[in-house]
């Protein structure tokens, strides 16, 4: 089994807010991240696929294909967007765009495409909010 990882970056803004809480609790729990004007990050998205190299091409999957899938499924929807205001998963009353939830949402976008294509399975999605802060999702395992 080979694990293959492709990395891409996207830039987006967000804020943390739970509508079922009063403003004071949001500010207490989320601190500066609760500023309703939002703030932004340069995110790094790492997508890891697991599979066996094809005996003819030596590829687990074509990296160009994976790049295009990441672009179409994730970056085109998230890059240079306000996650709370412009991305369906993070609309008011849905998921708070924490790094954990961004990793899960990226998995949900990528997993059906990778699975349908066959040849490799999605093993791990890692999202770096900064070089020191990241979240990872492995499909709930």
């Amino acid at each position, binding site marked *: 089994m080979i694990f293959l990882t492709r990395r891409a970056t996207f830039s987006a803004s967000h804020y*943390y807010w*739970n509508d*079922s*809480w009063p403003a004071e609790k949001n500010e207490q*729990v*989320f*601190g500066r991240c609760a500023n309703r004007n939002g703030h932004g990050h340069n995110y790094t998205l790492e997508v890891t696929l697991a599979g066996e190299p094809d005996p003819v091409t030596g590829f687990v999957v074509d990296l160009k294909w994976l790049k295009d899938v990441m672009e179409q499924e994730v970056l085109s929807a998230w890059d240079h967007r306000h996650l709370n205001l412009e991305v369906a998963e993070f609309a008011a*009353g*849905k*998921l*708070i*765009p*924490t*790094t*954990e*939830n961004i*990793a*899960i949402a990226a998995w949900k976008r990528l997993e059906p495409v990778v699975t349908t294509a066959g040849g490799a399975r999605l093993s791990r999605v*890692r999202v770096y909010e900064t*070089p*020191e*802060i*990241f*979240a*990872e*999702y*492995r*499909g*709930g*395992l």
Partner: protein
Amino acid sequence: MNADYGTAYFGRRYLLSASHRLHADALTAEENRATYGKCNNPHGHGHNYVVEILAGGEVDPETGMVVNMAAMDETVRSRVLDRFDHTNLNLDPLFVNRVPTTENLSKAIFELLDGGFAPATLAQVRVEETENNFFECTGD
């Protein structure tokens, strides 16, 4: 607010500067030099270690978080960084009977942090000794 997504992981990287000397009391001086090379030099040497902590658990539906980062920072600071940063690892009681290799440092950090991120659990400690080598402990 959240569906049940199972386990997700939150990771954080910290910097820790410390010195050490690799020397096993059970080996002769020649054997130590042969085994550890430059790392056996008598007066020790230092590294800027990167300590990467990975905690796993359910995403809290109210906060969207596996673990509160400020609480994680405080746990890591009080249990690990305050203990090891700008110290000589060989002088720490944890390394009296074990050589402060980065393998053993990653195990020691895992033991110090284990249970500290409830309700999330410590999934992995990675210690990067330099940009070119790192060690991971998953508690197994």
